[in-house]
């Protein structure tokens, strides 16, 4: 009995090895392979594979791709275990910055073609990837935040006009409300990152209301959460949400219970449940996958969140996918260089949902008028600031996201929420 089960185990093991050999021999060359960890799945993963294809064909290097929505935790584990991926695309630099400080990320200055990067990227993107004077992170695709999406047909039916001032926006939402519909759709659920769509609102308001100096101090942990500027951002967002979240479809329950990608689609219900939705440029993918018949411009369009203070007109919050290298291999260097080219970035740009930070990417590569417009906004932005919570330490970011959920749950608790954020701020930056 014992020997027969041992033989059986051996047979299984051998079979596994032979299968592996059989699968592995197909088309493999000596070009090697590369392990990539990112957060893209589904449609986005398909787009990323399309980007990789020409590079793989050219170099013969094989890509082993792995994704996780809990990327930060997975990266921490892998690095702790000494088994990092060769490269990773993190949706935020927070975790990466921690790893940089621990010396676990490879500085890129002499590893990749920095001259090409300098020639093709705005300096602000290079600065964002630079920590203590060394380049650690590069950006391949970026998004403009603070875009208010709307359905032009619904606006026309009620003869609403796109507001051009903050007061105009507030007037529009009271008009919509008096006509018996909730003006906004807001959705905050996003797994371990729940709350971030609300934090986007706050960042845009802080930047547009109190300007870049306050914004930078807020990111750096020197601007207190209880300060009048940050508190005002919360109360301003509170006036958008309305008393007891009455300006939002479904109220707080719906905001908290709904995944960020699903919230805006209720603009396309018949009759519409809401008229406006604040989200970055990537959201179009979610619109069209929920309602495939939707056409950009005619069925959904956007206007930038109006300036709150004229002093800081043209201020926008941006964000991007951050690449970094954990193992210095020739394959990783080659791929890093490739991802920084307009050629690579254009492939995804054409498939929709992304904006390229590379100046060489032609504007007519954008698949529709909308993405072209948001690309132009990015180019024309007077004050560009990177997503604040994504630059804060992980504890601060997590507390900020949670604060959004708590604030939406009960706006009257604002003061105690801000006090507890100050407490986190006092320790998180050490």
């Amino acid at each position: 009995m014992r020997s027969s089960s041992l033989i059986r185990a051996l047979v299984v093991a051998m079979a596994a090895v032979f299968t592996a050999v059989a699968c592995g021999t197909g088309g493999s060359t000596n070009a090697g392979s590369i392990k990539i960890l990112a957060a893209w799945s589904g449609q986005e993963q398909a787009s990323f594979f399309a980007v990789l294809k020409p590079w793989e064909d050219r170099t013969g290097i094989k890509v082993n791709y792995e994704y996780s929505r809990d990327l930060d935790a997975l990266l921490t584990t892998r690095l702790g275990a000494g088994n990092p991926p060769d490269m990773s695309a993190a949706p935020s630099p927070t975790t990466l910055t921690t790893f940089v400080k621990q010396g676990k990320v490879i500085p890129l200055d002499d590893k990749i073609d920095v001259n090409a990067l300098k020639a093709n990227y705005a300096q602000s993107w290079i600065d964002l990837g630079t920590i203590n004077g060394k380049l650690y992170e590069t950006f391949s695709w970026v998004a403009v935040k603070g875009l208010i999406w709307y359905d032009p047909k619904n606006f026309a039916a009620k003869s609403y006009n796109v507001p051009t001032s903050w007061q105009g926006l507030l007037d529009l939402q009271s008009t919509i409300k008096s006509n018996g519909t909730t003006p906004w759709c807001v959705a905050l659920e996003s797994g371990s990152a729940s709350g971030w769509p609300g934090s986007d609102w706050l960042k845009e308001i802080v930047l547009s209301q109190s300007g870049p100096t306050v914004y930078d101090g807020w990111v750096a942990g020197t601007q207190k959460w209880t300060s009048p500027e940050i508190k005002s951002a919360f109360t301003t967002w509170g006036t958008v949400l309305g008393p007891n979240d009455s300006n939002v479809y479904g109220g707080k329950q719906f905001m908290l219970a709904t995944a960020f990608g699903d919230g805006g689609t209720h603009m396309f219900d018949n009759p519409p449940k809401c008229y406006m939705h604040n989200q970055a440029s990537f959201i179009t993918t979610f619109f069209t996958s929920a309602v495939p018949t939707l056409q950009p411009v005619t069925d959904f369009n956007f206007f930038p969140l109006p300036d709150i203070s004229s002093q800081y007109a043209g201020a926008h919050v941006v964000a991007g996918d951050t690449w970094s290298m954990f193992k210095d291999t020739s394959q990783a260097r080659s791929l890093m260089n490739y991802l920084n080219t307009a050629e690579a970035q254009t492939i995804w740009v054409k498939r929709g949902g992304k904006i390229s930070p590379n100046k060489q990417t032609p504007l007519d590569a954008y698949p529709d008028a909308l993405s072209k417009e948001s690309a132009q906004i990015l180019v024309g932005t007077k004050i560009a600031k990177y997503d604040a919570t994504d630059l804060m330490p992980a504890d601060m970011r997590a507390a900020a996201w949670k604060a959004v959920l708590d604030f939406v749950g009960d706006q009257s608790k604002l003061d105690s929420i801000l006090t507890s954020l100050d407490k986190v701020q006092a320790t998180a930056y050490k």
Partner: protein
Amino acid sequence: MDFSVLLSDIPTLIVVIVGVPVVLAAYIVGGEYLVRRLPDKNRPRVRPWIWVGPAVFLVAAILFIPAIFTVIQSFEDNHGTFVGLQNYGNQLADFPSGGAWVAIRNNIIIWLIFYTLFVLAFGLALAVLFDRVQYETVVKSLIFMPMAISSVALGVIWKFMFWYQPPGSAQTGTLNALVTFFHHDPVAWLQDQWPNGLAVLNNLALIAAATWGITGFAMVILSAALKGIPGELLEAARVDGAGELTVFRRVIFPLMMPTIVVVGTTLVIFALKAFDVVYVMTNGNYNTDVLAFRMYNLLYLSHNAAGASAVAIILLIAVIPVLVFNLRQFRAVEARR
């Protein structure tokens, strides 16, 4: 599936497939060889240690030693400097809403009581009731089936059960479809901190999902204990004129007590370790945090290994009474034999 990754490191593969069994076999053969050379009277004393050695080594290496390191780390900051009780102070600060208090409350009060009670009550009821029907094996298999689902899948399934749409929209979540059928407004089960921000409702919603997953386990064990009760005892009670309820209360229940206690203590430990359902369904938001999840967040999101160690030790301290009780129980059962 792509198995080529297996080939990327052939030496390791050979070590795993060939090396590990060879080393084990060599250890056993070599150990026996040494034991045989000992004088006869010493053999019985040495041999058990040879055989139990690998297990002791594994337990020490992957359980005991890391636990000691965790204790040490909980008294240090993240750079290895001794800080006394500061990590515990941080975790236990600002009662009742700060630090780890929400997680402690959820684990030690809500999860421990309701999860254990629900699972035991359902498991016992199902075991006793199914004992009386002909299609017992079929229904028992059905109830046991959720055990085969991974807890992550379970969380996703229940997320759909609890799905929320605002009043007036089509309710795609099963529970809200039911609730609105009875003309009640839909409830955001996982987000609603009823009553009054105490967050009992959403914690119970999580516990309901976890209960569904584990009831089959309790039922199967309790059912086995039930089958072990001699039929003549029940017969005798019935002949003496006891009704079915009395038979259950006075005969079945007391005889099943040792099993109920064992299942109960196991469930208490499960309740204290609760993680996956919370991770998948609420991420610890809306006051549904639990200790294991807080530990995970501190370690992986905050990179605060010291804080995570302190939470781990708090969890360990919470489990100790259960372990002591369990050991006593085992001894009592042994003594009765």
